[in-house]
């Protein structure tokens, strides 16, 4: 009988839901949206984490390393183990490297550490830079995938096979610092093997050291930072110089024994990622540790125990990414928080509306003898049925939503052809489902209890009476909504002044110590401003949506179309309380979709702008060596102009910098950003740059200018090192230059701590460095060239031509890269903004539709009465549309204004996140696409008017007797 009662109850719940579709729709919409958003975020971040981990593992050089436990087992023992594990499917490749795994090497003796360091004595006599760590590999190193990871971005090649001559592969940082390129010969490299006291008063003091010098070392390759870290972790780039291990053999008497004694070799193992559960960090680490032990078991010695000890290297690398993932989740949650609040409100309001609709029914139940528990059970059961349905649809939608976020290549741009990507998201994600269900269910339960109790406790007479009391909330009763809106708009205005002008740079604000960018003011202005503006605008929406049409009634009521129904519309505007909640939701949702739309477009524009300014021309071509390429490039008919970008390393006071040479005749046709040119405008600076003066003219980056406290007109000394190969002496030369401008971004990716000079200055500096022995022709050799193409040229075809040039290394093509910008790792930001935009728009439309329909339904009797007193159907339509259109139009405009304010208020937050994730380096200027905003508003209006139309049609066609009768 219990089951029968449950089935009976479920059946009646379903029946009630089906018979009250409108009120059920309102509630279920909130449930679906809430579950889909919460689940979607969780599903997406898990997939993103998986992708990030896969990317890291994929690009890591190796994940596992082994060292010998006892020094009797040397390098050859490790090579033996390497041979043993070649056929293990879990292993991709392995090799032996001599050198530290990390910057500190601990030995068993606990009192000494062994360090290897190398100094480029000739080039860096004062050892201004830290000693570089040398790594030694054997000939077969390039056969392994480990070397592929290191050499994934290399100029030259990883060629250390010669044991006769000294060769080295160096990192880009060293090459830039010392102006080295492939083929350069470094005359002396000192390698020191030192035994250093680790602890005690003499800690750090070398106890024993051996230094040997490599002479005439040829640079065979220059590599970019290895490892799979994102720009955020660029600091982890290691400055390692690679040599052939055979070099150490030459010094075997002193060096190799020490290295063997300290077990300074390790076996590096690259795993086969297909054999490991990359998605689950803990499980993956367990699997790797199992592999480590399995390999250890293969190397059993005479003692019966393993002779090697393994380390899980990837665990440390993935740790920061777990943190990054958590930060991303937090960011995602903050971003979608307004949306979640919105959905919860929709759910709560839908429930309230449903209960309001049932107020009379509840009263009748009480007359029939129902107690509050029975009534509550009915409401609860129906809510649970709706919840089950809504949660199911919501979860299925969330998969789709997560895919949208993941596949977005830009704001409202998707790569939908990749079906495999969709499959990634199709899974039963327990965490996503449980989290979203629990949260939404909790909100639903609280609301059902709270609001249900309110209605159930009503006196029968009060419940049975028709019509609802119009209750103004606390904020409106006390006019706090006006205060909140004013606060929010003021905060928005302050942000507009911050982002678009230099208003707050004025002396007055400096005198009173007001800096709106400090934490406390950010909290007061931005944080509070966002909350106040969003909620205040929504609460005051009803006030404005009725006030404005009333104030302008002369204008619209004088329209001939509205003449006959003017009185009804006027009284409707004054008395109608049922539209307050509808206006609230419209403003709430539309402001979010406006925010998302504006920030989405802004984000896209920023990414594209950053790309454009980083390149600065149509192409940026780099070559493997410094030489004169301009003539080669100009041979192509599509080329309009070429500018080489030679560089010189220099110092100013205590700051190191790179001086870039630019052609004054071409400089103006490159892409400059005017940020930084506050003291002197960009145009003036570029014009001045062309004019020769007594003192060479330079433009300096704003960061460098700040460090040097330099401003326009100041003269500074550029200091370079002179290398005298004959005398083997190093000396300093200086060149005085004059600052004529400051920049934030110069073409070709020249950053804020660099200097831009003209070719004459570069020539002079290079001549100084070469101790005046250098002779240049017209062209200055350079690695990098900026190229502009002629109009109408097929830029991609020209790019293919460039790749055939001798020494070609890399090309960047602005046009192609802008079109491919979406394929870059964007941490789902465009996708999130797209989801925010679409979800809030959908919520707006559903609200407009559902609640307009409910309101119109309630007015059916009113329309029937009007018809009975002689109104035509046209007049009924005019009344309904006239009233609703005026109110909705005002709501839409007000919601858009609120969204605009929110965009500016949140711009700082988006800029911070973008900078943190390396999304854009330029200032984040809001881009307003008015057509998007207009379309937003039109969609809502159309939704509402459609709902009105459908309901009014049904009203006009209804049987008047039935409509006017009370049941």
């Amino acid at each position, binding site marked *: 009988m219990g089951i*029968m*009662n449950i089935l009976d109850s479920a059946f009646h719940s379903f029946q009630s839901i089906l018979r*009250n579709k409108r009120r059920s729709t309102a509630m279920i919409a909130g449930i679906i949206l809430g579950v889909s958003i919460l689940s979607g975020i969780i599903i997406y971040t898990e997939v993103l984490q998986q992708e990030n981990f896969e990317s890291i593992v994929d690009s890591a050089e190796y994940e596992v390393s082994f060292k010998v436990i006892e020094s009797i087992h040397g390098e050859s023992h490790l090579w033996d183990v390497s041979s043993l594990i070649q056929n293990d499917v879990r292993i991709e490749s392995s090799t032996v490297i001599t050198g530290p795994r990390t910057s500190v090497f601990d030995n068993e003796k606990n009192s000494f550490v062994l360090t290897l360091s190398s100094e480029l004595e000739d080039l860096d006599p004062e050892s201004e830079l830290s000693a570089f760590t040398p790594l030694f590999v054997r000939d077969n190193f390039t056969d392994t995938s480990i070397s592929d990871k290191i050499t994934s971005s290399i100029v030259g090649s990883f060629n250390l096979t010669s044991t006769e001559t000294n060769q080295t592969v160096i990192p880009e940082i060293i090459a830039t610092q010392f102006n080295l390129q492939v083929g350069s010969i470094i005359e002396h490299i000192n390698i020191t093997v030192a035994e250093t006291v680790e602890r005690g008063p003499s800690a750090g003091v070398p106890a024993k050291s051996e230094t040997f010098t490599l002479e005439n070392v040829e640079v065979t390759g220059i590599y970019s930072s290895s490892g799979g870290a994102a720009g955020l972790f660029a600091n982890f780039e290691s400055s390692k110089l690679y040599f052939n291990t055979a070099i150490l053999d030459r010094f075997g008497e002193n060096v190799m024994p020490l290295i063997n004694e300290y077990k300074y070799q390790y076996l590096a193992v690259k795993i086969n990622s297909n054999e490991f559960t990359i998605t689950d960090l803990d499980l993956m680490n367990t699997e790797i540790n199992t592999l480590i032990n399995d390999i250890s078991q293969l190397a059993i010695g005479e003692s019966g125990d393993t002779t090697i000890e393994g380390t899980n290297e990837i665990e440390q690398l993935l740790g920061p990414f777990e943190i990054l993932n958590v930060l991303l989740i937090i960011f995602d949650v903050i971003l979608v928080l307004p949306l979640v609040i919105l959905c919860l409100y929709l759910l709560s309001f839908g429930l309230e509306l449903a209960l309001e609709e049932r107020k009379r029914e509840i009263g*009748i*139940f009480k007359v*029939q*003898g129902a107690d509050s528990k029975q009534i509550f059970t009915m409401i609860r059961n129906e809510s649970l049925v709706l919840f089950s349905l809504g949660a199911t649809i919501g979860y299925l939608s969330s998969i789709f939503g997560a895919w949208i976020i993941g596949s977005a290549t830009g704001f409202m741009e998707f790569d939908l052809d990749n079906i495999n990507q969709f499959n990634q998201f199709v899974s039963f994600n327990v965490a996503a489902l449980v989290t979203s269900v629990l949260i939404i269910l909790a909100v639903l339960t609280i609301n059902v209890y709270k609001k249900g109790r309110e209605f159930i406790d009503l006196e*029968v007479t009060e419940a*049975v009476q028709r019509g609802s009391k119009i209750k103004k909330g606390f904020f409106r009763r006390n006019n706090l909504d006006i205060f909140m809106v004013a606060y929010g708009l003021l905060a928005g205005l302050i942000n507009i002044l911050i982002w678009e002008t230099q208003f707050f740079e004025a002396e007055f604000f400096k005198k009173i110590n007001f800096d709106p960018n400090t934490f406390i003011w950010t909290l007061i202005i931005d944080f509070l401003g966002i909350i106040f503006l969003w909620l205040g605008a929504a609460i005051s929406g009803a006030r404005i949506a009725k006030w404005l049409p009333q104030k302008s009634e002369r204008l619209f009521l004088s329209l001939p179309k509205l003449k006959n129904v003017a009185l009804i519309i006027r009284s409707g505007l004054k008395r109608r309380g049922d539209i307050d909640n509808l206006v609230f939701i419209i403003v709430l949702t539309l402001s979010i979709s406006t925010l998302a739309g504006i920030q989405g477009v802004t984000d896209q524009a920023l990414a594209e702008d950053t790309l454009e300014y980083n390149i600065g021309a149509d192409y940026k071509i780099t070559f493997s060596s410094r030489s004169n390429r301009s003539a080669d490039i100009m041979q192509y008919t599509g080329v309009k102009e070429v500018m080489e970008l030679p560089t010189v390393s220099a110092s100013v006071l205590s700051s190191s910098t790179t001086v870039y040479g630019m052609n004054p005749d071409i400089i103006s046709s490159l892409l400059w950003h005017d940020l930084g040119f506050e003291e002197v405008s960009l145009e003036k600076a570029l014009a001045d740059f062309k004019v020769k003066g007594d003192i060479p003219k330079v433009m300096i980056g704003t960061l460098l200018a700040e460090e040097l406290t330099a401003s326009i007109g100041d003269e500074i000394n550029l200091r370079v090192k002179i290398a005298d190969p004959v005398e083997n002496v190093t000396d300093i030369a200086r060149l005085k230059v004059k600052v004529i401008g400051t920049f934030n971004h110069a073409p070709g990716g020249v950053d804020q701590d660099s200097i831009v000079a003209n070719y004459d200055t570069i020539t002079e500096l290079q001549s100084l460095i070469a101790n005046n022995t250098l002779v240049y022709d017209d062209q200055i050799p350079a690695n990098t060239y900026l190229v502009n193409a002629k109009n109408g040229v097929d830029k991609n075809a020209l790019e293919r031509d460039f790749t055939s040039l001798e020494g070609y290394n890399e090309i960047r093509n602005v046009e192609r890269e802008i079109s491919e910008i979406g394929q870059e790792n964007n941490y789902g930001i465009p996708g999130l903004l797209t989801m925010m935009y679409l979800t809030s728009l959908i919520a707006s439309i559903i609200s407009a539709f559902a609640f307009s329909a409910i309101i119109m339904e309630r007015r059916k009797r009113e329309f029937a009465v009007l018809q009975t007193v002689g109104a035509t159907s046209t007049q009924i339509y005019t009344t309904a549309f006239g009233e609703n259109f005026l109110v909705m139009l005002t709501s839409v405009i007000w919601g858009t204004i609120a969204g605009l304010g929110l965009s500016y208020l949140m711009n700082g937050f988006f800029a911070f996140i973008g900078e943190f994730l390396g999304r854009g380096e330029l200032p984040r200027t809001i881009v307003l696409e008015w057509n998007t905003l207009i379309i937003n508003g039109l969609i809502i209006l159309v939704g509402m008017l459609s709902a009105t139309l459908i309901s009014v049609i049904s009203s006009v066609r209804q049987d008047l007797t039935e409509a006017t009768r*009370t049941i």
Partner: protein
Amino acid sequence: MELTETQSKQLILARNLYAIYKGKGDSQNVVALSGINLDMKDGEFISIVGPSGSGKSSLLRILGGLQNPSAGRIFYHGNEITKLDEDALVPFRRNYIGYVFQEGNLIPTQSAFMNVVQTLRFAGVERNDARARATETLDKLGIKHRMHALPSKLSGGERQRVAIARTLVMKPKVIFADEPTGNLDYENSEAVMGLFKDLHREENTAFLVVTHSKHTSKYADRSIELRDGRFVGEHGLDMDIDDLDLSRKVLIQPDGTLNLPLEMLKLLSMYGNLWDFSVVKEGDSHYIKATPAEVSDLGGHKHEFCPVCKKAVKPSDGQCNSCGASLM
């Protein structure tokens, strides 16, 4: 208030009931009921008559437990219900009263059958039993053939029958009906009142019916006249609803107060507000003889009456000296 044994046996005992509705904005409060006293026995059929706005529906709702009075007390067989909360009123609603609204007030999304079944299910009746009893009751009321229709598909009379069925199925001790035939034609009205009468006779169900209808009121054992929130008289079977003056018996309240109709008050006020009362016996009949006292001086002014307490007042006072009501 201590009830006597007799009072405890009354089906309904109401004392000093007031219903005051708060005025909105600047408008005054409305006193819908003013000091109503009612004694009703088991099985009585009483109709409440009076002009529109006299407080009949308010009285019915208060007596039926659908609305709390502003003041006063109500007892059902000696048990007070005035201070009970909604949940505490539930057994009373299930076991004692049935309520028939003028509008029917059926649940619009449930069929006629389910409207009746639902009442039984609320009372804890088992599903099959509830369905059987509902079918039987609807059959008895002659609408079994329409029991699966939604209320919107039923005629006015059919809906009223369903509402009655919903009430009858619980076998209440008293049925409150507010203009039960107000929306019905003559034939249906006859049918509904006939049903009421049958119940009254067969089940000894008490009825308290508010009506404007001459036809309906003739079914009552007695009719109580309500005017301006006060009982001003009682009528017997000879009542003519169109001319209540003819059949009115002045009602002496249990607390000894006497409410006179306004017309009578106006007539008597000419003679002042102090009267000598005596009970005179003439043959087998007793009469009340009222003689104006020699002194009933109100300063020679034209007498007016307070709208609340009905005592004579001087308009120039602006305020009633007895109850403080505004005279403006």
